[in-house]
Every structure is written in C-alpha cells, then in structure tokens.
C-alpha cells in the first residue's frame, strides 16, 4: 500500500485554469494520477488537458467521485476555496498555495478538525506514492518525477518541497525506493505535522523506515520527539536538519509571547539533540543519508 495517495485516488484541482495548475495537471496525468475534475468559478464547461472544469466544488463532486482536492488558487482566496472543499466532504486537502495569511490557515484548520478532514500544507508541493500517483506538483514534469522517485519502502516527510525530490532522488540512485513522500509545507503552521502523519506510516505495511527533512523554527520536530517518547515507533527514522547556521546568527526576538509559546524549542541544535535522544539517526551531511537509510532498510532479496 501507501498512505494518503493511492493509485485509484480521484483528484480535483481547485484553480485548475491557472498557469502553474494547468501545467502540473498535465504532468500529473502523464504520471498516472486520476485527475477527474477541476474548479474555476465562471469557467465551468471548459476543458483543461481533457479535464472538465466546474464552477463550484459541489457541482464537481456531484458529477465525479473525488477523494482529494489540490488547492492551487491565489493566496487571498485559499480560505474560500478550502471552506468550499471542506463543505463538500472531500477527505483530503492538499494546499500548494504559498503566502496564505496565518489567520486564514488557522481558520481552515479549525474547521477541518471539526469535520475530520486531513489537510496537507499550505505551501506544500504535494504527496506522491511513486509509480502510482501524486497529488500536487512534487517532482515537476512526469519524466523528471519518474527519474527522481521510485517505488519502495521508505516514507519521506519534508518541510521543503524541493529537497524532498532531492532526497528521494538520492535514495533512488542507490536503489532505495519510497512508499509515500509528503511535502508537509514550509509554513510555521501546517495542517499535518510529522507527529500527525507518523501513525499513518506506522500502519502502512509497505513502509519500513522514515526519512525526515527538518528546518529551523516551529516545533514540528519537538512534537515528533514527544510522540516517540510516549510511544516508540516500529519504524527506524533517519533525519537531516538544514539551517544549522541559524543557531550562530540568531535574530533578536520581538516580544516575550513567542518565547513563551516556543520555549527553548525551534533551534536546529536543540532539535538534533532531542531527535537523537529519541532514537532518531541524525545525518550531519546530506550525502550520508543513503548509507544511513540502507543500514535500516535491508536490500530486497
């Protein structure tokens, strides 16, 4: 299996007539993704690379069975688009738009949590289960995506979309495939954190190990450590933390509230120490990653 993104997942693209969205729609179809409908208000009836456009999400889900929606609309209207998707009962939202106002993100997540909808992003490049499907634009053109990602047993969660492809490519070059790779989004507040997604990977038989790409700031890594302390994982985890230099060049904090909320959390060195103490293998160099992963994922017989 895989998680979140399956070969038969039917996908809706909100904002499908946009330049970037129409490109990734075409490439996703070439990759094998089931993009079954698009939405752009006022453009209902048009076709984008053979995909029928609807005016509203409700109209789209009435005409097609949809399990996931990619939200690729301009930042100011992401809130609106997400609410529309939530209202129509779609189970998974992948928000690829960047620079969404924080208040809107929190409002979307409040509503999603009431409805039990899973949200990935914002500022995510998407979710990919190699050689089956992808929900989003990770990997770029279909040909490039096939080159970088390969089916296998390592799950990847990354705070950087670009580096997710880079990590997958490094593994692929050494013959290590991936089960599902998730670009969780680069913003301080995102719909699904490492800790939120860990149980899904744990429940997936195909996944034998996890690889994480971490960055400074936020408490995503610390939350994962809390979870690992409470309940150790069956999955061996390898992590890489980018931006160690941030510890040497710290900005001056503005106000006390940030310090109270984050405490001493957020620093790359702190994250590395805590992850290691919780049993995560932290690579200090990017090029060590395939070797570290190979140690925990035996070569297939």
């Amino acid at each position: 299996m895989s998680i979140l993104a399956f070969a038969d997942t039917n996908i809706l693209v909100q904002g499908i007539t946009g330049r970037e969205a129409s490109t990734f729609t075409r490439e996703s179809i070439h990759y094998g993704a089931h993009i079954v409908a698009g939405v752009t208000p006022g453009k209902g009836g048009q076709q984008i690379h053979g995909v029928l456009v609807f005016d509203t999400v409700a109209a789209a889900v009435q005409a097609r069975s949809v399990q996931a929606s990619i939200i690729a609309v301009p930042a100011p209207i992401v809130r609106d688009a997400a609410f529309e998707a939530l209202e129509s009962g779609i189970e998974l939202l992948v928000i690829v738009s960047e620079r969404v106002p924080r208040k809107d993100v929190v409002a979307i997540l409040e509503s999603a949590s009431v409805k039990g909808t899973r949200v990935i992003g914002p500022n995510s490049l998407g979710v990919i289960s190699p050689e089956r499907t992808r929900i989003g634009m990770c990997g770029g053109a279909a040909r490039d995506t096939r080159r970088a990602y390969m089916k296998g047993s390592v799950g990847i969660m990354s705070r950087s979309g670009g580096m997710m492809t880079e990590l997958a490519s490094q593994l692929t070059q050494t013959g290590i495939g991936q089960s599902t790779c998730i670009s969780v989004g680069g913003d301080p507040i995102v719909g699904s954190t490492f800790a939120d997604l860990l149980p899904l990977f744990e429940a997936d038989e195909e996944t034998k190990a996890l690889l994480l790409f971490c960055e400074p700031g936020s408490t995503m890594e610390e939350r994962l450590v809390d979870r690992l302390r409470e309940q150790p994982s069956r999955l061996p985890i390898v992590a890489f933390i980018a931006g160690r230099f941030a510890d040497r060049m710290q900005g001056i904090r503005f106000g006390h509230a940030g310090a109270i909320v984050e405490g001493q959390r957020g620093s790359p060195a702190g994250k590395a120490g805590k992850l290691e103490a919780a049993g995560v293998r932290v690579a200090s160099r990017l090029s060590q990653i395939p070797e570290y992963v190979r140690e925990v994922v035996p070569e297939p017989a």
Partner: protein
Amino acid sequence: MKILEFEAKAVLREHGLQIPDGEIVTSPKAAATTTERLARPVVLKAQIPIGGRMKAGGIHFAETPAAAQAASQHLFDSEIRTFPVTHILVEEKLASKAELFLGLIYDATERTAVVLGSMSGGIDVEDDDGIVRCPFPTCLPVPSFVGREVALQLGCRGHDLLNLARVITSLIERFLTWDALLLEINPLVMTPDGLWWVADVHLELDDDALFRQSKLCKRLAHSRRILSKRSDFEERAHEIDRTDHRGVAGRLIAFDGDLGLLIGGGGASLTTFDAVLDAGLNPANYCEIGGNPSVWKVAELTKLIMSQTRVTHLAVIMNIVSNTRADLVARGVIKGLLELGCVPKEVIAVFRVPGSWEDECRHILEQHEIAHLGRESAIDNVVNTIRCPS
C-alpha cells in the same frame, strides 16, 4: 511587519483602549517641552523595533523637564542594537497598582490563536510559572467569554474582572481584524482608580495579509519607513526582484567573504549554506532563488553578488529543479559574468543545477568549458570541491 510602539498605541487608542498621555519627539528640547506640558514624571522610550528595550537601555525615566532633556539627549546620541534613535515617545509615568502581561499570538503547536496572561508583567515574564493560556476561535465577532475566562484565571473578581475582560475582548478583536501575528501588552497597568492602561505594546502584522490591511498600513507610515530600511545590497536585490515578476530572488543577505552564492530553493539554500560553513569557506552572501527566474533576473543577481569587493568566485547550487529552468539559470549567470568582463570558467567555482532543461543547461555550460554537475553529486560533496584562493 513590526510596528513601532507609538504608532501601535495611536491605532489602539482609536479603539477605546486607554493609552497614557504623551507625545512623539525628535529633539531633546521637544522632550523637555512635552514633560513641561504633562507636568508630572515621565518615561522616555526610544522607538526602535526590538524586544527587551528596557534591558537594552532604550527606556529612561525623568522627574523634570531638564532631566527629560538630558536623558533624551543621551538616547538620541546612542545606537541600540544597531538601531539609531531618531524618535522618542515621552509619556506620563503611570501610578501602578498592578502590572499584567497579556500576549495574543498563534500557537503553532496547537494550531490555534491563544491569549497568554500573567499577573507579574515585566521584563522576565517568560520565567513566570503561573502563566494563563487560553485559546480563542478566529471568528468575528469575538465571543466575550474568552476575556472573562482569562481575567478569572488571573485572579480578578467583580468589577476588575469585567473591566479586564473588556480590555481582552478588544485586544482579540484588534488582533484578528488587523491580521496580527503578535499583539502583546507588557505591562498592562492598573492605576489606583481601577482602570487598565496600555503601558507598552508589541504589535507585529502578518506580511502575507498586508494586501487586505491597506487602511491600517496608511496609519503606520513611520514603522514602514524605518523597517523597510535595508542595506544598499539588499535594496538593490529587492529592486531586481521587483522589476521582473518572473521567479523569486528573495532573501539576499550580504556577508564579507570571497565566495558568492547563487543558491535555491529554500531548503537547498539552508543545506548549501551549512555545507559552505562546514567546509571552512567564506560566503559573501546568503541567497534563495526559485520560481523560474528570467535570464535578466539571474544576470542582475549575479552582477550584484559579484560587485561585492572581496568576491572572487561564484557557486551556483540548486536542488533538483522542477519549475525553475536550469538552462535559464545558466544563461543568466554567464550573461551577468560576461557583462562584468569576467571569464565565466575562472569565476564559477561549481555549477550544480539538476532537473528541468538540464541537457540544455549542460550544453550552454560546455560552450564556456564549465562542468555541469548533476543529481549524482550530493550538495555537500559539491561544496567540498570548491577551492577559493584565500
């Protein structure tokens, strides 16, 4: 965007919050005049966008106009954490019965907005163990129970509870209406007559929501001017980015090393910069490019980075690109170097941009006898091959 105290107070006052009487001044003489008008002890506060101003020496007290003049002269002559003091807020000193801390912020861990409160407001409030924490919904109008809950947990009763709850409700309303990321009152002072006063405020607005805050932004002209001051280098980078909408040339920061960096995207920039420092190299700048920049944009950035006096070499390193075209990056870098009169192969220390259009990229580089490094070379290994003459 961080808002200076005096502008934040001015807009809060319009929404019914009690702000001490005072004036913004730009000379010691004006500080004395204001103190004379107020006819009571004053506090002099340097208007700079940092936290911990008291500890940093940005706040003074004065009993008389003469003392206010001397203290403000001292402030105007100083530079606090690299910020020159050009504006001072002269305010009446409040008689305080109680000093609270109130902070409104998003809690990234819980993914909710929260009010933080403490009865021991002041400079070391984050060490207080008795901090009250109350999440609130982001919908408007603001439900008033949140304010009462916080006031109650802080130990207020009767009229004090209702008064404080009203202040908290207004603050939540401002926080949400203005798209703030932080609204912190520290301290919120209760005077002997039972009124609550905003003695100091930290306000930070969400840059990503400024598009819908144009009315508010017009009232914050001074903060915008001070905070948009960049170094000439950053200003030029910003100009290049603004002139051409194709691609992003965000976050260009100058250092004093000899190795220029044209790197991206975000995660790869962090990774590359770590590797550069680990290898003992001296970076001339930090940089993040992405979003498929045009040839012109890359050429201008290349020239800007190479214009720093100590720079001798340029490393071009990106993660596997999907949206950005590797060939356009190559064209831009070479165009920029040629326009500067450089020989590209002598300046380019490494060029690693795998991904879309990489065959065309390789072809362009070959014409200038430059090796194109691909996905098989890990970023840190690429950095480790760089040799700078210094």
